[in-house]
């Protein structure tokens, strides 16, 4: 005896047999694709979205962004370091060249602290050992009183020049003999300042190795050129 088939399954089977055959869809599909391509020229954001849908590209982009960020950070740090070094060099030059710091606003105690800070920078930057540092500190401490005195004289002479200028403007004339003496004194003072600074730099350089000396003079060179003290 044959097992009766589920009537519902039987009816479903017979209903399913009535399905018509599809027409060839290829021409219609390609026509729609062509129309869509023409109508929807991909916008910038759509292109970006398509490109970033590829994992390889999105990963590469992320890596490139991180690399660029690191590079820019490094560049910024390097720039800041350069600026800081330049400021330190300028500070050092003002400390050793009375002509650059004719109006010392800082008292002597601050100058000592400033000197310590600058020497700490020199130690790191030039790789000085403790003995070299101590010797260079001695040199600076020995010559500093003289340099400070010279800076005071420079400031005094600048004030005298201001008086000459005021007199010239108010009275329309100056005492040429007195002014000639002033010029002579100023030349002498400038020469003495330059000599003192040269001596300090030379004595400090003597403590250093040739490599350190070269680096030391290279550090001072740009600042010396910008301040017009190239003769040092």
């Amino acid at each position, binding site marked *: 005896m044959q097992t009766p088939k589920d009537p519902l399954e039987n*009816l479903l089977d017979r*209903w*399913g047999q009535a399905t018509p055959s599809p027409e060839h869809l290829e021409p219609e599909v390609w026509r729609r*694709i062509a129309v869509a391509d023409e109508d929807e020229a991909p916008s910038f954001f759509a292109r970006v979205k398509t490109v970033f*849908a590829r994992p390889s590209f999105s990963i590469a982009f992320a890596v490139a962004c991180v690399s660029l960020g690191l590079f820019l950070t490094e560049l910024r740090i390097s720039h800041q370091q350069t600026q800081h070094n330049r400021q330190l060099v300028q500070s050092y030059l003002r400390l050793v060249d009375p002509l650059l710091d004719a109006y010392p606003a800082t008292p002597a105690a601050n100058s000592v602290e400033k000197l310590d800070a600058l020497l700490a920078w020199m130690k790191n930057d030039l790789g000085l050992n403790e003995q070299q540092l101590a010797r260079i500190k001695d040199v600076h401490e020995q010559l500093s009183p003289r340099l400070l005195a010279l800076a005071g004289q420079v400031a005094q002479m600048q004030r005298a020049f201001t008086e000459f200028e005021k007199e010239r403007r108010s009275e329309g004339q100056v005492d040429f003999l007195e002014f000639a003496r002033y010029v002579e004194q100023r030349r002498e003072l400038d020469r003495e300042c330059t000599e003192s600074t040269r001596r300090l730099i030379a004595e400090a350089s003597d403590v250093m190795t040739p490599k350190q000396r070269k680096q030391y003079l290279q550090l001072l060179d740009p600042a010396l050129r910008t301040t017009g003290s190239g003769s040092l």
Partner: protein
Amino acid sequence: MTPYPDNDNADLQALQHGDDTALNRLMARWQKPLFAFAWRYLHNTSDAQDLVAEVFVRLYQQNHRLAPDTRLSAWLFTILSNLCHNHHRWRRRHPSVSLDASERQDGPQASSMANNVPHDSLAPDRTLEHAEALAAMANAIDRLPHDLKTSLLLHHYEHLGYREISQITGCSERGVETRLYRARQYLRTELSSFLRETVQP
């Protein structure tokens, strides 16, 4: 679900690498089962062809978003079932007279049945009964909720397993089983009078 998963993946990768002829191969392979599903869902030939064409257009436009190991058959049926659902809802809200009048007015089988049912073996009164049963079946399936209808059509006609249907419909395998049971129960209730008559000895 499909006897050609390797071919599908190869063609999908070819399409992703710019080989447009791969789409022709995929269409040749899948347009018939997709069309059959859409036709059974919508009971309208031109709508079914329109939606199947849309599925392939989307496949072409979105192929770069698919992973190379995507189960393409599941993706195609997912898109198509969603399109059918949307179209069916739209058609309910915008009723119109189909140019394919015989399909809509007399049921989807009324016209095609005359060519498909072997009426040589049946008496005229039996032929009429069969036609009525098939029309009632079409109407009952048309009234099934989307989830039940999709599960039933994919399982009975496309011979998909619970796992594959669950991938397409987005529910669990147990959920698919429940939906199939409910769909059959609904049809048994709706077609009870016809089912008694169609029992074969």
